């Protein structure tokens, strides 16, 4: 056999490269991450610099996107907003990933009665509408956490709420995949060779279901970013002076009649980010599992 062995990811990468939209979206997301990481360097002003002589100005050379009602530079706040929105999205997605994988793998691997009980719990959480669940969890964490600053408390509450809501979907996917892989011949062979349960789960089963997990994760991050901005928009999420796109939209809504650019700018930033993640997610799904197309 002379054909070089190709890993799943190499194949997937080759297929993904052909999908222009997904590729550009990936580049866009990387750029956005760069902007978020270097927000301090890139933004012309700090996110809470107030300039009371320059309130609600239209775009100018000094303030490329104008200023808000407290004289803060909108572009700088958008850039810091990218930092906050992206880190909230990514952090919560990773947290839900950890929880979802452990929970789903356990349910799928053990099976039987334990699986039934675990999944019934997931069903119950699933039958509460997302935003209601998010808000309830946030009420809980707002009241029990120890941070003194109300803004910091709100941030932690949002992080916990999003993480807790996110793992449900991941747990379902992981469980389904584990149950499928569990029946495959190579797992049986490993059993016959005396492999122990837990090491086998981590060494042989989980690596083989990474594809679907990565795809779900690509959709989880934008959904978390979106829900964060919804929460902040209705005033139950992050609080100013923190700047996330939802916080900006919340503030912009109040001046929509006279200064619509204050809400349209963060809205557009959010829209482009969502679009990029959705296109990348679609591309990844097709690349990882070509049959699903």
């Amino acid at each position, binding site marked *: 056999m002379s054909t070089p062995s190709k890993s799943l990811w190499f194949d997937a990468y080759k297929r993904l490269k052909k999908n222009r939209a997904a590729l550009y979206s990936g580049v866009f997301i990387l750029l956005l991450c760069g902007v978020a990481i270097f927000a301090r360097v890139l933004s012309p002003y700090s996110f809470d610099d107030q300039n009371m002589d320059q309130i609600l100005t239209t775009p100018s050379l000094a303030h490329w996107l104008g200023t808000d009602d407290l004289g803060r530079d909108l572009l700088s706040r958008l850039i810091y907003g990218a930092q906050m929105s992206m880190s909230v999205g990514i952090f919560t997605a990773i947290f839900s990933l950890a929880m979802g994988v452990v929970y789903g793998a356990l349910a799928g691997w053990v099976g039987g009665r334990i699986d039934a009980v675990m999944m019934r719990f997931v069903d119950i959480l699933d039958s509460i*509408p997302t935003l209601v669940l998010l808000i*309830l969890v946030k009420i*809980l964490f707002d009241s029990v956490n120890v941070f003194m600053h109300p803004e910091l408390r709100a941030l932690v509450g949002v992080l916990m709420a999003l993480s807790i809501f996110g793992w449900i979907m991941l747990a379902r996917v992981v469980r389904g995949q584990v149950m499928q892989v569990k029946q495959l011949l190579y797992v049986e062979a490993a059993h016959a060779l005396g492999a122990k349960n837990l090491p086998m789960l981590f060494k042989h089963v989980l690596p083989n279901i990474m594809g679907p997990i990565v795809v779900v994760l690509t959709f989880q991050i934008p959904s978390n970013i979106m829900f964060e901005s919804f929460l902040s928009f209705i005033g139950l999420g992050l609080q100013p002076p923190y700047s996330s796109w939802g916080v900006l939209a919340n503030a912009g809504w109040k001046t929509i009649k006279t200064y*619509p650019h204050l809400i349209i700018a963060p809205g557009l930033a959010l829209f482009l980010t969502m679009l990029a993640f959705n296109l990348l997610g679609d591309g990844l799904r097709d690349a990882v599992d070509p049959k699903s197309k």
Partner: protein
Amino acid sequence: MKEFAKNFTKKVVGPAAVIAFLISIVVSFAGFEIPSAVIYVDAGLIVGFFALYTITEGLGAYVLRRLGQTVFVIWVIATLTFVLLRIIPGGPFDQEKALAPEIKQAIEAKYGLNDPLALQYWHYISGAATGHLGYSYKYVGREVSEIVSESFPVSFQLGMFAMVLSFLIGIPAGVFAASHHNTWKDSLTMIGAISSVSLPSFLVAAIMITIFCFGLDWLPVALWDGPSYYILPVVVLGLRPAAIIARLTRASVLEVIQSDFIRTARAKGLAEQIILYKHVLKNSLIPVITFAGPMAAELLSGAFIVEHIFNIPGMGKHFIQSVTNRDYPLVIGVTLVFATLLVFANLIVDILYTYFDPRIKLS
């Protein structure tokens, strides 16, 4: 006889329920108050259809078991929310300006907050079972169930309009894209769809309000008082589900088009339009029906934002307000209603699967 009952349910009662329901929605969208007699007829037809269908298809045991599970799920949610709101430190009557201790005592006694927890729990659960969800802390003297029953019809209207709109746009768009597969028409439709999925609702609302309310002065900015008030919220709420339905329909139509029975239909020389709308569409709607369950959840969650934006007096707006006001009985009440709706929506969707796809057997 049994066949007759089956056919009667499927071919007469079902369509009659759908038609009656759609007519009511159209009439209601036109701004007319629906007489309560018509609402009873609608509800009777729908409940009657599900009852007849359950009996004639032999799904009785399944539906009973699911109903039992539903009661269990709602009980768990009720208990969890009760526990959640009792372990939160700080009562609803802690204000910046402290009340005199006697007054606070009296208020807490009035709402039963000094009773032992077990007794409070019993009052709460037995009340919820009989439709009494306690008194609002904020709107003094008003029962939660009263507030819910006032705001529910508004949210229901909004949700139903948006659902009808999303099917009206989504399905034709999906069929259109699929029937022009791999052409610019297909790409354009799908770009539109994925953009609509990615649009945050407050951006759509902001743009539309700027254009249609402030710019052209055609439509009102807020509230829920008649057809001109309905348009913007319904479009904002229905856009995302419409886009998801368009994508689902397209994928499903593309799959069905390749199947053998379509090739047979083509070989028989049927007109392409007949094939597309009669044979393909009918068989490709099953995944779209599958989405109806998650869509109910989507519309409920989306309605929060839309009701907040347009200041519509529905349940979502009350929920947000009651969270801000720490009006916990109202928070619990609305949560329970939302959860109940969602659980029933999922049950209905599961039953409908078997209607649209007789190959599926529920057990």
